[in-house]
């Protein structure tokens, strides 16, 4: 077995993180196969088990090495990269993975459409063959990072005459194409984390297709299976996250306390603690190699808790009628603790919608975890173009 720790030490011996340029360091790390060790050699990895990555991260962090700011490039790392690895040509992998991992090229995801939210397979963005290229026209929505992205993963409809799951095709899309227009999508918080993306005869070379023509649904499943609640390596401390903020608000505002709010806070405190413990348990299962399906319970509970806690916070804060700022901001990511109670209340409403609504999640739990039968389906055998929309 490759001695990963030894490799890291050797790598560090040649490059002092304190004196090496950040980007040079990251590129060299990729080239040394220490980006994601479970990727193949030559593509940032060493073909090792995924679990070994933790050792690499720990060693590098201990040495004060820069990281690639993984939260900022989460879509590239978590969704695009595994899909490119699984379905891309060698040329695409060589071209795309390195700048993806170093963060030099940001990625976004062109999946959701105004008419295809929970039902992704209903999407209608058309791709038509044009010689060696495809011409793509349609509208995508809820695209984070579209305004900073160099590339997108894109699912399109190539055959409207077959049932919806069968007529989709998956591409890598160049966001600098002149047919791509990105508009900020303002949310109820006042800010615009997301975008609408309008595609008008965007030209995509066939070489940028991932998977076969008509096989886009299956390729998209690979992407989505990698979009799950990230389970970090470390435990959250007690009162970590929103429960801590709200508990502190409670402690700071004795005038706003009522017995009713008190018990509500305690109930939520109990649930937040239990959710934290469930997270610890899930991580211990993962470490043990036997992860359970509890991650979906955690997403469901997290959304509900965030909503109830922030709703309560407005009642117990000094003046819940105020808001901090309605300016149209364009944040890189959600800031649940840096802003005020009103922001948390409004933003938390999205927790049960984004990344799969709580309703879809309940369907999935009922069918996949509990084994309950599915509902009668009316859309399985109908050509996409004949579906009611």
């Amino acid at each position: 077995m490759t001695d990963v720790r030894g490799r890291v030490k050797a790598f560090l011996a040649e490059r002092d993180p304190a004196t090496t340029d950040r980007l040079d360091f990251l590129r060299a790390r990729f080239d040394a196969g220490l980006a994601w060790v479970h990727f193949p050699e030559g593509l940032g990895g060493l073909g090792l088990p995924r679990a070994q990555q933790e050792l690499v991260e720990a060693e590098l962090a201990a040495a004060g090495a820069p990281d690639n700011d993984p939260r900022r490039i989460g879509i590239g790392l978590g969704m695009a990269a595994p899909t490119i690895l699984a379905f891309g040509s060698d040329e695409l992998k060589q071209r795309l993975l390195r700048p993806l991992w170093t963060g030099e090229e940001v990625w976004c995801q062109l999946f959701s459409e105004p008419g295809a939210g929970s039902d992704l397979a209903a999407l209608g963005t058309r791709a038509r063959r044009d010689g060696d290229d495809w011409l793509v026209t349609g509208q995508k929505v809820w695209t984070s990072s579209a305004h900073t992205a160099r590339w997108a993963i894109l699912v399109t409809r190539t055959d409207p005459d077959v049932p919806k799951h069968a007529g989709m095709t998956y591409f890598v899309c160049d966001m600098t194409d002149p047919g791509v227009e990105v508009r900020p999508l303002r949310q109820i918080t006042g800010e615009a984390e997301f975008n609408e993306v309008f595609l008008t005869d965007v030209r995509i070379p066939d070489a940028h297709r991932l998977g076969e023509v008509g096989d886009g649904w299956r390729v998209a499943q690979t992407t989505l299976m990698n979009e799950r609640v990230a389970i970090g390596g470390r435990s959250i401390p007690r009162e970590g996250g929103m429960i801590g903020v709200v508990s502190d608000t409670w402690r700071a505002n004795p005038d706003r306390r009522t017995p009713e709010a008190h018990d509500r806070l305690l109930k939520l405190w109990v649930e937040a603690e239990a959710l934290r413990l469930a997270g610890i348990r899930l991580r211990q299962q993962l470490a043990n190699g036997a992860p359970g399906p509890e991650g979906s319970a955690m997403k469901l509970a997290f959304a509900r808790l965030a909503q109830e806690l922030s709703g309560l916070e407005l009642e117990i804060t000094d003046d819940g009628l105020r808001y901090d700022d309605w300016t149209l901001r364009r944040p890189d990511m959600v800031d649940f603790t840096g802003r005020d109670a009103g922001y948390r209340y409004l933003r938390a409403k999205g927790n049960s919608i984004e990344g799969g609504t709580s309703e879809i999640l309940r369907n999935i739990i009922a069918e996949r975890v509990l084994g309950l039968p599915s509902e009668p389906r009316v859309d399985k055998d109908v050509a996409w173009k004949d579906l009611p929309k």
Partner: protein
Amino acid sequence: MSDPNLLTSDVEEALRAGVRELLADKADAATVLGRVESSTPSDLDLWRTLVDLGATSLPIPESLGGQGVSWREAAVVAEELGRAVAPVPFLGTMLATAALLTLSDDPHAQDALKRMASGESVVVLAIPLSGPVDGPLARTVRSVADAGVADQFLVPADGGLHLVEAASVQPVVSLDLTRPVWDVTFDDPGVRLTGSGESAVDSALLAGSALLAAEQVGIAEWCLTTTVAYLKQRYQFGRPVGSFQALKHRLADLWQSIVLARAAALNAADALATSNDDVRVAVAVAQSLCSTVAVRAAEECVQLHGGIGMTWEHPAHLYLKRAKADELALGTPGRHRAALASLVNLPG
């Protein structure tokens, strides 16, 4: 105790129809959203039309230029204004109206009511919309509803009510875009009205809470109706989303809550109109229930609209913000229940 009258009369329904028609014309969602993003969030043109319709002076006696009807009719207007989240200074002026009516032996109070009825003045009660009002009031009163368009304020101080012009009215970045609040500073004691300020404020809070309950019913109904309409025309998985049973059951439960909330709100308005002994219980019941139902309706509205409900361009957020602010206004549900406990001998 005889049963309250929980039906709306033909006259009340005619009033409702008139106000609703006006609001459909002048305060549709796009207009309201445009308005609240402007520098003048309150719509004084719309207000003037409501004044002319008589909708703003219903409980003021005819002798003072008002309509001389009752709080029942005012509640009908509140409900319709809630249904449209119309940005007009109804709540603030109704609070002032209720306070002034308890002091109407005072000629200054009479004069103020006359000016309010004619639309000449907008007089607002200077209390914080949320939070305790029983403490001593500072020179600056924080978070006063509708203050931005007021000419005069009724200020509780030293056990009395004072009719005052403000030294400054500072806009506050408010959670509720359609009923923003202002911080108001006074440096002139103004005219002290004859009579008890405490009982005037008490009456104002009772009337305001009953009107708020009606408003909340209007909000909840808009949210339910809009959600149902959306789910009928939104298709996913080849079916209208409104055919999915889990959503149908949630909406049925919401409708059920609104049926109860409506009965409670009507009862509070009727108790206020008939000045019956039960008005405190009726108001506490209505406020604690309707607050909760309106918030739930607005939250379900956002959730069941999916992504579109999270956007600024869809009006759902205006209702969510109003519903949540209303829940905090004039006492949270928990505080109203605590008040109820002593009224009905259920000690903690």
